[in-house]
């Protein structure tokens, strides 16, 4: 309990390559671009983005781009996918280096993945999930290229995934899940379509995610997990209902998930830490206005000053 160990978390992220030869580290090689987004956004939120050298990162990111399609893979030599394309754009935005991109090429890749019914596929193999709707919209919005897709059908598809509890699933009829809800509400927020959300109904479902230990779960009868501090909280902020949860209890839950000796945050107290949960814990604390952390934009999942720089400094 107690304080946020900001310096320790920075050390953890920067020195993660010195970690033991663990199998967990092995399995994320193919999603290193996501890892870069989680790590670098956390550093920026903690006001320590200077800890890394931008040029090398930018160079590596561009090597992840597939020349043919314009999309980005999770690492050098990997196939392009929407997941990594968004992370590439987000990291370049963080580093204020969006100028290195051929905007048309990247946005054509994203736009090309929209289906007839308004949904988006993750890549050429056709997996459909509302996660991909969010990714496409967020990415194109950051690049100023929403006009390349059919926004109306995008919104209609999201609305078709709305459930009786006010929440959203991954496909029409899919169970409401906080992660999917974030993606759908984010899509609606960015496209100016939040009127499709029943804010009171969804707000209640979301605030019911708070468990006795103060943490948030993702669906009824599941355990609390730090990552839901982001998915649930950002959704509540976007629909202006964040005052419905007990912020103090949630803050304490997140702080209890820290490894105070070695840095990093885990999914729940006393478990092993990882970069993913470290990011979501810090991002959650940002939304809770924890002192010393920069503000994060709940829809774009980037620091507010980065988003402002993109949209307001023309």
């Amino acid at each position, binding site marked *: 309990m107690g304080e946020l160990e900001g310096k320790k978390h920075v050390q953890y992220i920067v020195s993660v390559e010195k970690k033991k030869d663990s199998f967990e580290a092995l399995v*994320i090689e193919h999603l290193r671009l996501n890892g870069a987004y989680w790590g670098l956004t956390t550093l920026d939120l903690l006001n320590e983005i200077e800890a*890394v050298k931008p040029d090398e990162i930018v160079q590596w990111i561009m090597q992840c781009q597939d020349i043919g399609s314009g999309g980005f893979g999770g690492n050098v030599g990997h196939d392009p996918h929407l997941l990594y394309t968004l992370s590439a754009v987000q990291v370049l935005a963080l580093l204020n280096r969006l100028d290195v991109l051929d905007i048309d090429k990247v946005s054509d890749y994203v736009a090309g993945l929209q289906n007839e019914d308004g949904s988006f596929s993750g890549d050429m193999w056709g997996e459909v999930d509302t996660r991909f709707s969010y990714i496409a919209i967020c990415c194109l919005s950051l690049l100023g290229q929403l006009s390349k897709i059919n926004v109306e059908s995008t919104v209609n598809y999201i609305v078709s995934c709305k459930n009786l509890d006010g929440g959203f699933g991954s496909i029409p009829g899919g169970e409401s899940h906080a992660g999917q809800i974030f993606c759908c509400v984010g899509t609606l927020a960015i496209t100016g379509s939040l009127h499709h959300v029943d804010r009171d109904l969804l707000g209640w479902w979301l605030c019911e995610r708070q468990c006795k230990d103060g943490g948030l779960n993702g669906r009824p009868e599941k355990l609390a997990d730090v990552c839901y501090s982001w998915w649930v909280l950002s959704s509540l902020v976007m629909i202006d209902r964040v005052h419905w949860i007990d912020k103090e209890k949630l803050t304490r839950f997140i702080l209890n998930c820290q490894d105070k000796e070695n840095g990093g945050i885990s999914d729940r107290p006393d478990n092993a830490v990882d970069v993913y949960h470290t990011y979501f814990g810090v991002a959650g604390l940002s939304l809770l206005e924890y002192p010393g952390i920069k503000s994060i934009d709940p829809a774009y999942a980037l620091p507010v000053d980065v988003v402002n720089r993109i949209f307001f400094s023309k």
Partner: protein
Amino acid sequence: MSTSSDEDDVERIPLCSRPEWSDVQPLPQDDGPNPVVSIAYRDEFRETMDYFRAIYAADERSCRALELTTEAIGMNPGNYTVWHFRRLVLESLNANLHEERDFVDRITFQNSKNYQIWHHRRWLAEKLGTEAANRELEFTKQVFALDAKNYHTWSHRQWVLESLGGWENELEFCCELLEDDVFNNSAWNQRYFVITRSPLLGGLQAMRDSEVCYTSKIILADPHNESPWRYLRGLYKGEIQMLISDNKVPELCLKVLEINKSNLFALSLLLDLLSRGHQPSDELRAVIGALRSSQDIAGTHGLAATLCLVLETVDPMRSSYWAWRRTNLPTGVC
């Protein structure tokens, strides 16, 4: 998480020592000079991936390439590029997709939360067509036996039903799962999915009465279960008038309050009914009056406002929400 396929209690022979791979020059991973998220590799894994990269760069779509992707998947089933290439190889070799499905069956159990595996499964099922429906439904049942809330498995099952069919026993399946664990929110969601989308049932209108009956019994058996309460509301979706005038609903809430006088779901549903114009029975008035006394609520408040005040004390974590409800009650509400 598996480190290699389970038949390998036999020691693994490094690829560099295998004669059939002697013609290949493995390609190492280029991490860049100062990796942001850098990883220390285990030697076996590194070697397998180095050989994979070589085969991938050469676009070699051979049997040995297929086997190599099997090894790589065994070590790291999350690597989507390996799966992508595997599909290309399967197509080029015109491989036996039934054997491929057997392979996917085996690895799914150890990796049931892996997006790539479920997507690959769907890709296969699409190719195999409607004959695959029963097998897919049966398979998802087996996964549910280990984890009845697995989100990927539910998405897959829903896709199978809508694209390949097999609705006949779905409602019964939901009943079985709920008998195993009445708190399983996924099973409740699936129940709603079935009654609203199955071409074999009559739709929500036709099913409403029997479902209200079923759900009420379950609520009475354990009123602390969030899911059936939400399900009950869902049964009246789009029919507010029916909801507020159907006496079954407030009667159920009152019965629950007899067993558990501060049950938050019952109180909240009564609040919603009153907020929407439900005319309270004498019994309901009396119960709320009793709650007012037992919670020591001073001052004059209408029934709905009283419920809000009660809820603020019985559900303090969400006191802001209940306070907001109180200040946002429609005018004219009891």
